């Protein structure tokens, strides 16, 4: 009775390999746990921290490369007061950002929007990660399925001829 491929494999290896999905599953669990721990706020943010969080996403209109969180200009001061008033009134950060965009245009938001040219900021990293993972998977697959190089008849003749020459050379040496 011929042995099945599985039993041949089992007899040819000293110990059984772990299931192929185990390392992937372990990686997924670690990744999910790290994301969950990283995304969880350490404590309930105070009103000042919430104001600062929104202010960091609003560009100071009269500054160069500054948000209203860091600038002391009259505009930034009024913007921070407005953010505070709106947070106290129960508005969400995205609603507050929408207020500023409505008054000043899209450029005032330091968060790229999810549409138009700005959407590339969100889409490109995902595309790069997917392409990179696909490329790695393809490379691993090709390496795994690479057959060992088999010498051709010409190669074997060449080796034999070389060995023969060496043999002759060593035999003739004093």
């Amino acid at each position: 009775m011929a042995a099945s491929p599985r039993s041949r494999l089992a007899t040819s290896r000293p110990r059984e390999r772990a299931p192929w999905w185990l390392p992937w599953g372990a990686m997924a669990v670690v990744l999910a746990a790290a994301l969950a721990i990283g995304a969880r706020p350490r404590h309930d943010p105070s009103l000042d921290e919430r104001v600062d969080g929104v202010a960091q996403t609003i560009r100071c209109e009269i500054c160069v490369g500054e948000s209203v969180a860091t600038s002391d200009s009259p505009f930034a001061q009024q913007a921070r007061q407005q953010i505070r008033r709106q947070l106290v009134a129960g508005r969400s950060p995205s609603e507050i950002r929408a207020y500023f965009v409505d008054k000043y245009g899209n450029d005032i938001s330091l968060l790229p929007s999810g549409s138009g040219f700005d959407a590339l900021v969100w889409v490109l990293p995902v595309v790069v990660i997917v392409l990179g993972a696909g490329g790695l998977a393809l490379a691993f697959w090709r390496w795994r399925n690479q057959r060992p190089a088999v010498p051709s008849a010409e190669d074997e003749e060449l080796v034999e001829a070389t060995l023969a020459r060496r043999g002759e050379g060593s035999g003739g040496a004093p």
Partner: protein
Amino acid sequence: MRGRSRIVQAAAGAVAVIVIVLVIVLAVSKPPSDDSSSKLIGRPAPELTGRAVTVEDGRLGGGYHLPSKPGRWVAVNFFASWCVPCKTEAPDLRAWAQAHREAGDGSLVQVVFGDEPGSAARFLRHHGGAFWPVVDGRGGVALDWGVSAPPETYLVRPDGVVARKWIGPVTRGQLDAVMSGAGAS
């Protein structure tokens, strides 16, 4: 080896195509809006409420509220005593306000931006002579109007819709041109 060089060539070609597309998109995309544009133009003027400032002594007086349909042109000017261009435009604003008050078709409201009422009143005694200096009564008026830094002036039509915005010093001629272009005197 040949296969690998083909892959490298294809990747380089793809990167080149992406760079060219990005350059084209950035080149033909809409340029940043000019100084005079505002998201408010063509929309009803935001709420404007505040407390009047007594020019003589800087004390706060009664309340002010811009009607939703004022029935005449209203120039809403945001200013501060520390703002140098505000001094430049002050004589023109005063002349425009006097002329249209007499004609009965326009008025000027000056809103104090980032300044103390006392300083603003002192400024107006020296440079202005405004008719409705007001301070923000509830907070956020300047932001509701989309103001970044003084001086900024909005011209509101009699039906309460914002007709035009100026960033920087405005002249009497600019204000009158918009009014006459819209069929007003």
